[in-house]
């Protein structure tokens, strides 16, 4: 599917209209959604109405900027006024949003067209998208596999050409994981930059809202609109020569699928050959990441769900209900220990970035797992899928640093995998400039196949 940037050029050259591209997406949804189950709700009539309005506005000289007339999907965890926000759960039956979440309002104001709401892991409490009241979403690259999660439907909608971009949420990797699994770009901005109001929370101190797109440039356009400002032009890529990049090898590269490791190392070689300095660095307490993350995210989720676990437990999918029930047993003293650990980790990531422009690591240690798999073989060891899915992303939700997953070359089996770039807090624009500079080298392409 055409990128946002390319569509904008053709729209303004009067070669393509919003209605034409929206209709094309809706046709694609009609063809592909029965196979992929990416959408929970398709808003076809409303989308065409919005697209025609966008075309009329442009014809009359009113240009709202880079997202004018761009058809996108929205994860069904953000409020769109007038339609339910299900969070992929029967617990939310009967809900109707009476206003747009601020992030959605910014997109509406920027002229975006809403195609519909996408499937997710129930309440975003999972990374495979298997546990949804609407059934699992599937990976467009191989429908027997998970699209990742929790924003799996969002990633599938973009990767399958059903939308030009999507908006997801990320509490432990829920934008970057499905982006890597489906072969697209996923950006988690710095904590607090994009409003999480009107978004069903998983953990208020870990939740982030951000875009899933085909290119880094498109992620930048979406990010600026989500902030609520005018859609800025794509920033200039940072010069690659002299770029200071660091790989946290211990822990983060200990457990990697062989194919993912090979693609990661090849991409690093290309960056070095282009003049970037790529060194190694250590996050001293990396081994504590999973326990710290689990105690914070579990306690936060338990507090939010305590009432409905008591009153309507049968409305949850069984796996999510059981995990939430487990979460209710976290002791206050351990939650406080985890908060201390989070602070230590935050300072260690700050230290790692003090002399570097970005940290580089894979976004996902392996390609998308088969739907239904509870374990995955990594080298000679067998690991739980859930632990592996979160392993490389959850740290940066705790520390609040911006992070973006960019597609690498596909594995020998043709499955996508992603490289994660992590930047300094509240410097998401600088991170985007680094990712823009490196994108084609990381992809192993001379130009975008999607554009």
């Amino acid at each position, binding site marked *: 599917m055409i990128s946002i940037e390319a569509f904008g050029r053709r729209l303004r050259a009067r070669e393509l209209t919003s209605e034409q591209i929206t209709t094309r997406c809706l046709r694609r949804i009609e063809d592909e959604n029965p196979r992929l189950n990416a959408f929970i709700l398709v808003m076809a009539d409303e989308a065409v109405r919005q697209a025609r309005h966008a075309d009329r506005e442009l014809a009359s000289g009113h240009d709202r900027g880079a997202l004018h007339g761009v058809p996108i999907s929205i994860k069904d965890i953000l409020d769109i006024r007038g339609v339910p926000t299900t969070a992929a759960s029967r617990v939310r039956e009967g809900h109707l949003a009476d206003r747009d979440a601020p992030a959605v309002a910014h997109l509406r104001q920027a002229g975006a067209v809403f195609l519909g709401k996408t499937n997710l892991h129930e309440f975003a409490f999972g990374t495979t998208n298997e546990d949804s009241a609407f059934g699992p979403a599937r990976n467009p690259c191989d429908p027997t596999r998970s699209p990742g999660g929790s924003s799996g439907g969002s990633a599938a909608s973009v990767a399958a050409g059903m939308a030009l971009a999507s908006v997801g949420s990320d509490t432990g990797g829920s934008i970057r994981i499905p982006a890597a699994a489906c072969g697209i770009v996923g950006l988690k901005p710095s904590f607090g930059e994009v409003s999480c109001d009107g978004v069903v929370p998983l953990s208020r101190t870990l939740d982030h809202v951000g875009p899933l797109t085909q290119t880094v440039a498109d992620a930048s356009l979406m990010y600026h609109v989500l902030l609520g400002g005018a859609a800025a032009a794509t920033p200039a890529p940072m010069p690659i020569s002299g770029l200071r990049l660091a790989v946290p090898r211990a822990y983060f590269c200990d457990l990697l699928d062989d194919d993912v490791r090979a693609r990661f190392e090849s991409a690093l070689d290309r960056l070095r050959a282009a003049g970037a300095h790529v060194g190694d660095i250590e996050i001293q307490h990396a081994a*504590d990441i999973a*326990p710290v993350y689990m105690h914070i995210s*579990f306690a936060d989720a338990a507090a939010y769900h305590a009432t409905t676990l008591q009153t309507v437990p049968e409305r949850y999918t069984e796996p999510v209900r059981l995990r939430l*029930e487990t979460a209710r*047993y*976290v002791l206050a003293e351990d939650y406080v220990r985890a908060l201390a*650990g989070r602070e*230590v980790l935050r300072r260690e990531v700050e230290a790692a970035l003090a002399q570097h422009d970005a940290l580089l690591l894979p976004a996902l240690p392996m390609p998308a797992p088969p739907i239904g798999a509870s374990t995955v073989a990594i080298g000679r060891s067998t690991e739980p899928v859930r632990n592996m899915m979160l392993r490389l992303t959850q740290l940066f939700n705790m520390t609040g640093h911006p992070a973006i997953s960019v597609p690498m070359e596909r594995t020998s089996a043709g499955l996508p995998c992603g490289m994660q770039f992590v930047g300094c807090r509240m410097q998401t624009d600088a991170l985007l400039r680094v990712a823009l500079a490196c994108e084609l080298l990381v992809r192993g392409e001379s130009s975008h196949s999607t554009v």
Partner: protein
Amino acid sequence: MTIDQWLEAAQTDADGRRLTALKPLLETLAGMTKALRAADFNERADGVNMQCGMRNLEFPKRIPHS
């Protein structure tokens, strides 16, 4: 409460609520809690502190791009 005592109490509670499927999940949580409590950033009232107290970590100054 030690982790073993906590796990036993939690599993008994889960049994009482007819949530026996919780037991393996509680064991996983107990393992994570054990790791969390063993981390060297934890502080102790007797002053016998770990190698890496938070106070030992200064915020680094960012070095501008040259």
